[in-house]
């Protein structure tokens, strides 16, 4: 390999590590920035869980970390909302959109399709730096006068438009909007690159039906992003106009702070439509990459082809398409036309069908496999479990009639954390365990990984399953405390239990972060193909080189799921239980993806 080493090895630090245009380095940058943001989001949730579990009790740590946001160790009610808002924003956008897609699309697209790099390394670099700047602004907004944005991650006006209504809607919200605008630019630049790279730069023989499911999921995610993020930008822009210039797109008939506002003729409902036109697809922007990643892992670790490759692709396409026409299910009780409500119920429940198909295909892939339980595989099984558990309660929320009584309650919080939060996180973490050798050239410690998995799944269900019960008892979300209602008095135990599990979850993640840092620096050196995978990334060397393959890019002859394929004599074709994509088809052998 050294014969091919290039002057790039000596390029100066700044361009190698900071303004790198190499997709592998950009992937690392996304991963680390995403994890830092994720850790902050996680810490916030632990803090406000303390308040919910032990309302009014004084905590040293809250005083220490929150400063003026707390009084005598108890956080203030409006700052509770600021924490919830920032937690939601950071988790959804910064960790599970940029962190997840940014890391794995960047790492795997060129490696798995056989390309030297992204279509445009420059745009790719910009994408990361926009994300970085956006993260920094979002964090700065935590420290400004009035506090960070506090209107919920959905920033519905008028609350988000009027500093009179909540202090966080002052400078904090302005910075939120600026950060999100930059974030959207980052996401669009990334998506452009992913789509074009996948469509145009595949290596010889890499037809669309020979792409690993990861790539399909990144492609569909990117398309969904390109279609929906601009609409969020439009929504945010009109909100900026209303806030800063006094237009009336969303505001009308408001009396606040002792005076009537000039705004007339706008409608907050309009904002909801625009927001959820992104907001719902966003759920799938989080979910689809996680599904793609785990499909790959489940197949590799079960030593079996993924069951129903084509059905998996069709389901993802169907989910991607349907995700754009279901947004109204977030608005059943906004007074929308009941007929529209009926239409949205219909489209929403339709999404359950491709989702169900995916679940059954996962399970069938396990059947008669030969499953090695690496931490990545454990998290993948965990994802299938969370996807089922959270998806099923979606049938309740998607039904307009039932939604009337559970809308905006803790039932919703339980549902979306399990189906989107946990599935997204599990998929992302599974991906990190599986491709860590590709990212850092070293192996993570399995024992710590197993412990991490067990703590995570136990505490995750411990946190979010009981929330359904709170919701069915009528507890609204975004409440600073439930202690003001006699109705909720006997639910205290549930809240305390949830908080204990949240604390456990927090410490469980510390194990992971330790494992991550330790292994990245000191872990055992990785072999080239530790999981005996078929796809192209395992044909590249452990050491990263610019351009990925030292000589020619390998040609591809088959789909990536030829695991445990036998010849007519009942033996493995290659002598081992896997056939890399670079091995030509034998005479008369059919390619798996082609049926």
């Amino acid at each position: 390999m050294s014969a091919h080493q290039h002057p790039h090895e000596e390029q100066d630090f700044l361009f190698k590590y900071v303004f790198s245009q190499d997709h592998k380095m950009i992937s690392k940058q996304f991963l680390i920035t995403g994890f830092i943001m994720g850790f902050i989001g996680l810490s916030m949730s632990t803090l406000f869980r303390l308040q919910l579990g032990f309302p009014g009790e004084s905590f040293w740590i809250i005083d220490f970390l929150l400063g003026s946001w707390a009084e005598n160790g108890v956080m203030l009610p409006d700052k509770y909302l600021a924490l919830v808002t920032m937690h939601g924003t950071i988790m959804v956008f910064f960790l599970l959109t940029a962190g997840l897609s940014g890391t794995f699309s960047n790492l795997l697209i060129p490696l798995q399709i056989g390309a030297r790099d992204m279509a445009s390394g420059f745009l790719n670099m910009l994408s990361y730096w926009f994300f970085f700047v956006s993260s920094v602004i979002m964090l700065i907004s935590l420290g400004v006068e009035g506090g960070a944005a506090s209107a919920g991650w959905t920033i519905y006006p008028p609350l988000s438009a009027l500093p009179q209504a909540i202090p966080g809607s002052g400078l904090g919200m302005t910075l939120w909007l600026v950060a999100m605008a930059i974030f959207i630019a980052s996401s669009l630049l990334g998506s452009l690159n992913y789509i074009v790279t996948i469509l145009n730069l595949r290596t010889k023989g890499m037809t669309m039906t020979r792409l690993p499911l990861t790539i399909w999921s990144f492609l569909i995610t990117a398309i969904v992003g390109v279609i929906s993020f601009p609409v969020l930008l439009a929504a945010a822009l009109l909100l900026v106009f209303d806030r800063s210039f006094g237009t009336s797109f969303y505001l009308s008939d408001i009396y606040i702070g002792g005076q009537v506002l000039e705004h007339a003729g706008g409608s907050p409902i309009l904002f909801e439509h625009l927001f959820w036109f992104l907001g719902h697809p966003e759920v799938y922007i989080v979910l689809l990459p996680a599904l793609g990643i785990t499909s790959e892992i489940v197949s590799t670790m079960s030593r079996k082809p993924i069951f129903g490759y084509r059905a998996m692709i069709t389901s993802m396409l169907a989910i991607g398409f349907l995700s754009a026409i279901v947004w109204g299910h977030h608005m059943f009780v906004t007074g929308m036309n009941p007929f529209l409500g009926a239409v949205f119920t219909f489209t929403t429940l339709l999404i359950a069908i491709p989702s169900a198909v995916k679940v059954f295909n996962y399970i069938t892939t396990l059947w008669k496999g030969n499953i090695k339980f690496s931490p990545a595989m454990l998290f993948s099984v965990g994802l299938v479990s969370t996807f089922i558990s959270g998806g099923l309660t979606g049938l309740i929320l998607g039904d307009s009639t039932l939604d009337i009584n559970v809308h905006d309650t803790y039932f919703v919080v339980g549902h979306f954390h399990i189906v989107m939060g946990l599935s997204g996180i599990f998929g992302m973490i599974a991906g990190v365990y599986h491709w860590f050798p590709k990212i850092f050239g070293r192996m993570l410690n399995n024992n710590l990984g197993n412990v991490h998995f067990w703590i995570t799944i136990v505490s995750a269900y411990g946190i979010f399953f009981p929330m359904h019960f709170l919701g069915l008892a009528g507890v609204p979300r975004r409440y600073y405390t439930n202690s003001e209602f006699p109705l909720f008095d006997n639910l205290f135990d549930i809240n305390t239990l949830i908080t204990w599990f949240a604390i456990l979850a927090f410490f469980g993640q510390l194990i992971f972060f330790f494992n991550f840092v330790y292994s990245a620096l000191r872990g055992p050196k990785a072999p080239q193909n530790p999981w005996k995978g078929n796809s192209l990334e395992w044909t590249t060397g452990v050491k990263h080189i610019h351009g990925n393959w030292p000589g020619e890019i390998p040609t591809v002859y088959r789909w990536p799921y030829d695991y445990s394929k036998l010849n007519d004599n009942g033996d493995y074709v290659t002598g081992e239980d896997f056939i890399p994509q670079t091995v030509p088809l034998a005479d008369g052998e059919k390619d798996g993806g082609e049926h």
Partner: protein
Amino acid sequence: MIALVAIVAVLLVIATAVQILKIAELRATESGKEIYEISAKQSKAQALLLMVFLVAYFGFFAWQVWKWGGLMLPVSASEHGVGVDELMNITLWFIIPVFIITHIFLFWFSYKYSFSETRKALFFSHSNKLEMFWTIIPSIALTVLILVGLSNWNKIMTPVASEQEHILIEVYGQQFSWTARYAGKDGKLGRASVEYIEGVNALGIDISDENAKDDKIVKGEFHLPKGVPVQFVFRSQDVMHSAYMPHFRAQMNVVPGLKTQFNFIPTITSEEMKKITNNENFEYILLCNKICGAAHYNMQMDIVVESKEDFEKWLAEQKEFSAE
């Protein structure tokens, strides 16, 4: 000082962990293996834990139902709510078995087919029959759910016909309280707008409007008659709120610049509900369910449901708007 001790302690923990990892790696290499290799035994151990987890998960579910099932909302106190609860039950009877069966398969297969050096996995990449099967079955189940759901939905969302006997109430939200306004004898609510808000006239009622004169404004708690359709109209003064009356399975957002509506027929009086729930202090409640500011968590109003006669007596005692 505490911080210093804490930092030292954390550093020590990390250093110990690093040492342990190093030793483990060395021991693995000595036995001729790499530490990251996963043996059949290790894999089986995790698979076994997955089975344990499955049982624990179901157990946890059952425990929650047993422990907290009684704390859920009591029977619906409105007519349409009974339909909602029924639909909820149908849906749950569909969801829970699917949840259990898929989980059993998922974890059982994981356990059963855990890695062994001797077994070969089955190359089984697709089956049109199976895939058709599990596309069609969910489709049928969902069609049923949709049809039942939508027939309920259309009924619930249809406003009370104006010629039918009913009570008209405006529920008015502002940071952070609720006010109710009854239409009075004429059955009509007087015009209102933020322009007219002044002093005690917090609802912004147009004093010159004839319809407004007999309107009755109440705070703190409001009453509903049993068995009579109640037509609600919602208005907000400042930001969005949501009028949530969980016992009646009723919720509607309260949006500035927009009038929204909801209607239901109360079927159980407060007194009856106290007996049903075995709770002396039971009160129906209206709470805010859309984030609306710092005190969002404490924006509430009590609701009293009583017989029609009691209700009329109570209403007669309330002052008319013109009297204020």
